C-alpha cells in the first residue's frame, strides 16, 4: 500500500525518515513491507551441476596433492594445529 507523505502524521513522517535514513518531501509516497529474512540460502545446483562441481574439485585436490611438500604425518598434524589455533587460540583436536 502506498502512503502519500503529505498525508502522514508528523510522527509517522519522522519514523519513515528514520527508517529510510533521509528526509522525504510532500510530493513523494512511501510503501513499507514486512518480510522474513531468509535464514538458509539453499544450493541451486542441479544433480548434473553438482557432479560437475565434484569433478572440478577433484582436479583441484589433484593439484594440491602434486604441490604438497613431502612432510611426515606428524609434521602435517603440527601444521594443522598451529593453523587452527591462528583462528581459534584455544582449539584442541579430539583424540
Amino acid at each position: 500500500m502506498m502512503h502519500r507523505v503529505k498525508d502522514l502524521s508528523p510522527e509517522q513522517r519522522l519514523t519513515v525518515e528514520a527508517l529510510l535514513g533521509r528526509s522525504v518531501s510532500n510530493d513523494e509516497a512511501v510503501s513499507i513491507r514486512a518480510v522474513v529474512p531468509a535464514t538458509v540460502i539453499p544450493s541451486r545446483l542441479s544433480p548434473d551441476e553438482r557432479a560437475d562441481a565434484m569433478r572440478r574439485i577433484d582436479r583441484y585436490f589433484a593439484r594440491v596433492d602434486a604441490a604438497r611438500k613431502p612432510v611426515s604425518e606428524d609434521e602435517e598434524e603440527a601444521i594443522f594445529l598451529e593453523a587452527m589455533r591462528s583462528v581459534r587460540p584455544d582449539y584442541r583436536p579430539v583424540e
Partner: protein
Amino acid sequence: MKIVLDTTVLIRAHSRSDTLARRLLHEILERGRRLVLSNEIISETVKVLRYPAFQDLYGLTDADLLEYRQFLQNVSDLVVLDPQYRVPFLRDPNDAHILQTAERGEADILCTHDADFHEDPAVLSFCATRGIEVCTEKSLLAKLRAA
C-alpha cells in the same frame, strides 16, 4: 540428512588424497545429502588455508583459494548467521559460529575435529536437545556408508 562440516574438517580435505575429510565430501555430495555451511565457516577455512605454515606446505594461490571458496559456496546450503547470537556456556567463544550454523541450519549432524564439541557436556546437551548429533569424520563416514 543435513550435515555441517566444521573448518577443522574442510581444511583436512587438503591433507592427503585418501583423507577421510575428502571422502566425506564425496559421500555427502554424491549421495544427495545436504551440506550445510555459512559464509563464516567458509571464510574461516580460507583464513586457515592462508596461514603461512599452510602456504609453505601447500603453496595455494589466490586462484586456488577462490576456487575452493566458490566450490563450498555452490554445493552447500548457506546459513545466514545472526551477529547478535550468544552462547554463554561456550568455553571457546570462537566456536559460536559453528554451533549457530548447526542450530539455524537445523542440521542433523555436526562433524568436527574440535574436542570442545565432543567433550563439553553443555555443548553436547545443547546439540542433543536440538537433534544434532556430533560426529568425527570417521564415525560420520561409517554412518553414511551404513545408511
